[in-house]
């Protein structure tokens, strides 16, 4: 036993050797010296791979240690710190403070490319807004997958802006400020018109005479054939940015 539990004096010598600053620090912060068992419990709980229960802790500490009282004192000491001593069932462990979870996350930016369908849908929303899903489908000639709209909502570049006054009252979509800033547009009317697109060689000229593209506008004011989104139905579980959608009701 005596081998396992170095005499208190010995421990104290070790401690002061290891940390010459100790004495001043201790004097400054507390009148009575900090009991050695607190150091021991700190070390055991820190090094343990899992929470240690009181029985196991008692076994590892010098006989006669009031483990329960020491744990309570330690818990109190650590409560204001970034690391807390917490009780988990009958066992104890150090854990980083709950309110600091944000600090222990690493936000990695993951660059992602939009799918072709998403870009096409986005372009149609941009030029034809306010536009419903059915109208997008009519222009594209294929169904718009739900995932495509979800992704676009996630980018924060489109938003539901109202409802069409039509059977089923479908949502109308429009672009956001984030859309303008991502694509370097000062205003939506900076999107090139038909002549400019032709000039850029994006249309090959075999267009019917009646072909036109709309002059896009993202004026948040609802159109005549739109009505506002109702507050409860706003919660689509889709809107990515809490700050993006509220404007829609404004």
């Amino acid at each position: 036993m005596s081998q396992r539990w170095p005499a208190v004096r010995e421990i104290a010598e070790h401690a002061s050797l290891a940390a010459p600053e100790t004495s001043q620090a201790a004097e400054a912060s507390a009148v009575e010296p900090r009991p050695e068992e607190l150091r021991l419990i700190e070390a055991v709980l820190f090094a343990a791979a899992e929470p240690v229960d009181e029985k196991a802790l008692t076994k590892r500490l010098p006989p006669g240690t009031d483990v329960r009282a020491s744990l309570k004192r330690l818990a109190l000491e650590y409560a204001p710190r970034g690391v807390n001593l917490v009780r988990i069932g009958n066992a104890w462990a150090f854990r980083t403070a709950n309110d600091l979870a944000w600090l222990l996350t690493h936000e990695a930016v993951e660059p992602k490319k939009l799918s072709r369908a998403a870009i096409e849908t986005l372009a149609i929303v941009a030029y034809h807004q306010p536009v419903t899903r059915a109208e997008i489908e009519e222009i594209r000639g294929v169904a718009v997958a739900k995932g495509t709209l979800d992704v676009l909502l996630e980018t924060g570049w489109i938003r539901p802006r109202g409802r069409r006054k039509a059977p089923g009252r479908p949502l109308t979509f429009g672009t956001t400020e984030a859309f303008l800033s991502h694509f370097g547009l000062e205003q939506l009317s900076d999107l090139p018109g038909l002549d400019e697109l032709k000039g850029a060689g994006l249309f090959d000229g075999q267009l019917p005479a009646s072909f036109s593209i709309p002059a896009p506008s993202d004026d948040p004011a609802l159109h005549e054939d739109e009505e506002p989104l109702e507050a409860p139905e706003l919660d689509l579980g889709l809107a990515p940015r809490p700050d993006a959608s509220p404007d829609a009701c404004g």
Partner: protein
Amino acid sequence: MSGDAGQFLDEAVDRASDEPALIVDVEGFEGPLDLLLTLARQQKVDLTRISILALADQYLAFIEAARKLRLELAADYLVMAAWLAFLKSRLLLPEGGEAEGMSAAEMASALALRLKRLEAIRAAAGKLMERPQLHRDVFPRGDPEPIAEIKRPEWSATLYDLLSAYAVERQRHALSHVRVAKRAVWSLAEARAALGRLVGSASDWTELNGFLLAYAIEPAMRSTVFASSLAATLELVLEGVLDVHQPAPFAPIHVRKRANGPGPTGLPADSERL
């Protein structure tokens, strides 16, 4: 000489007495320098004041003894023996006037320095290994809390992507919308409903074309109406609503309501009539 050698060999053996494998294994020494250092320690003086001459004698005697015992000696040991024999002869000769290279005394002190250096690094190694070591004396956090990785997608697309996607999309449909005029096609469902309505009014063989022509006013629609109706007719036959009859290839097709058939399904007009 040989007596000396035996004594040193014995001492070398003593040194390794807790490692029996080393008794006959001169390789238990970490090379000739290690052997020299072991021998030098027996002089129990500061390495800088050691008698290199005496040390050379001891080394050579050790090697001699080892050879008598037929121990395999690594070449390193023999090279050192040769060099020491040379040094010894130089040290024993009166210092001549030869100025080429190092003097014997310089060679001797260089050797002493090498031994001292080896001893010093060994002492340092010992101190290093006595330091508290991680996982043996000091411990890191036993249960680290991993940093949670939150991936935030950053979407990117260029204005060019956007505009070209738009142009391609619009162009594709601009052309298809214009060129493909919507064809008037009688769907199967339409034909079937029409047939059901018409057949319900006749119970004897009727020429199919008669019904169709009565229905299809526009001549342009005749072929599509005919095709759809024929298909619908066959389906109704399959369901036991109609009988169909064609006396000869390309002859007019006659249909009639089956005597106790269920009647065309889903057509309220017929069920009323039944």
